[in-house]
């Protein structure tokens, strides 16, 4: 029985040989005094290649090779880890779900006037939110929170997620105009409180659903929320990217100055006989 080189190793009296000629196996077993040769199989596809590699490549190149191989594997793991981290970061950035308040910041109770497309109503709800103290930043954060509520899957007034309000400016009334007519200025002097200028992002406006009801509800919701939480605000005006715009998405008028009023009351004079369904 002849074994081909590379498939195993012959072992005789504790020493190894690659040649089977010195230890042929007979049918009757080993002859008296003859050396016993045993066959130790090996993995030719692996060890022979490694042996050839080790014999043909200088040691320093082999070391370099192994170092580079290890570095490549490590870099692969590192890239996979970084990719996972980047994906999580992107997901967190697009997720408009409000974050939990920092532990060190105390939360307060605020009223959000939430709209419903089903019945055209605006309903006040209480939320515990941690907000900054500066009034204009506080107003912006509150409106952002309001819009974030509409980005939730079960919202009754669904809007696209993402930042909606760029800034909120609070201006004391009456606004002094050095070029104004004295009679006009005298009439404006009766205005009190603050004018809140809500500067919406065009990305929010462009994604806003188009329709009379849905646009009016968004406007009423923002006005009502500011009225409920900022007693000094008496008027509200809207801008889009710092510029006046005629409508929100083709219907609701954004060009006018709205009074800051309670928008949850609804239109008491509008009640058909038999009620609405």
């Amino acid at each position: 029985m002849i074994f081909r080189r590379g498939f195993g190793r012959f072992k005789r009296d504790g020493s190894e040989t690659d040649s089977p000629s010195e230890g042929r196996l007979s049918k009757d077993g080993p002859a008296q005094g003859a050396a016993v040769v045993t066959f130790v199989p090996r993995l030719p596809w692996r060890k022979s290649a490694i042996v050839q590699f080790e014999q043909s490549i200088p040691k320093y190149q082999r070391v370099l090779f192994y170092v580079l191989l290890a570095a490549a594997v490590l870099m692969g793991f590192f890239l996979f880890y970084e990719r996972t981290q980047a994906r999580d970061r992107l997901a967190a950035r697009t997720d408009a779900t409000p974050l939990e308040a920092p532990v060190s910041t105390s939360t307060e109770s605020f009223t959000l006037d939430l709209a419903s497309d089903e019945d055209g109503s605006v309903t006040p709800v209480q939320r515990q939110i941690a907000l900054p103290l500066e009034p204009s930043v506080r107003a912006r954060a509150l409106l952002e929170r309001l819009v974030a509520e509409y980005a939730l899957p079960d919202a009754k007034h669904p809007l696209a997620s993402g930042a909606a309000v760029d800034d909120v400016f609070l201006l004391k009334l009456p606004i002094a105009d050095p070029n104004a007519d004295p009679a006009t200025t005298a009439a404006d002097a009766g205005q009190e409180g603050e004018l809140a200028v809500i500067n919406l992002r065009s990305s929010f406006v462009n994604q806003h659903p188009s329709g009379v009801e849905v646009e009016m509800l968004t406007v009423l919701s923002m006005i009502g929320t500011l009225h409920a939480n900022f007693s000094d605000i008496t008027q509200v005006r809207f801008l889009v990217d710092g510029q006046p715009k005629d409508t929100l998405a083709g219907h609701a008028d954004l060009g006018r100055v709205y009074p800051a009023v309670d928008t949850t009351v609804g239109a008491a004079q509008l009640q058909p006989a038999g009620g609405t369904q």
Partner: protein
Amino acid sequence: MLWTERRWTGVAALLCTLTAGWVNAQSTPAFNRQVIVIDPAHGGTDGGAQIDDHLEEKDVTLAVAGRLRSLLAARGFTVVSTRQGEPGGVLTTDQRAETANRVHAVACLVIHASASGNGVYIGASAISSPLAAVPQSASVTRVSNGAVPWDRAQEAYISQSLGLANQVGTALARAKVPLAMGRVAMRPLDNLMCPAISFEIATLHSGSDATPVSDEDYQQRVAEAIAGALVLWKNQAQQPDFVTIPRPGGGA
């Protein structure tokens, strides 16, 4: 001498007051009970809301307006539409209001359509409501000659508009159409000198079923309910208090 000057001053003031009242009365003429104005919103390059992949709001409003016009004509009304088909450019809200204000209609209907909401949303102008726009300057609202400011043209008719909204809402509720109502800040409602409402037709949700606004039966159902309400409204509408009713044979 001093007494004579004061007397003439008083006579002049009285004449001015009477003239202003006459001008004011002339600026809000009596409406014609046989005339209805329909304003299919949007049109031309202004497509309005995207209802679905292949349907724009301007097409739905025109279709509903066509149905309503046929139903109203069959009931003896003269229907004036602000647009019959596709205008070349964009028909502004001021142009629409100008068309409507010329005919002194007993009702003005602004038709909209939307992909959001449920059923029909009826809106009346926010004028004379807590949500009415804040005048920004006394000069804007000052009326020295009895003329009606353009942005407050609806003010004299708002009580009638609310009555019309309730009339139409009642008819739609009887037709089992889901309904919502509210005051809306939207042009050209504030500029119309007639009892005016807007109605926005949206997808009809009934349980798990949804009927799109493009459904012809749905459109016909809404149009018939509104046409029926307008027949009743024709006899219920009242002139604003300060309107002078023209004498028979006289101009409107």
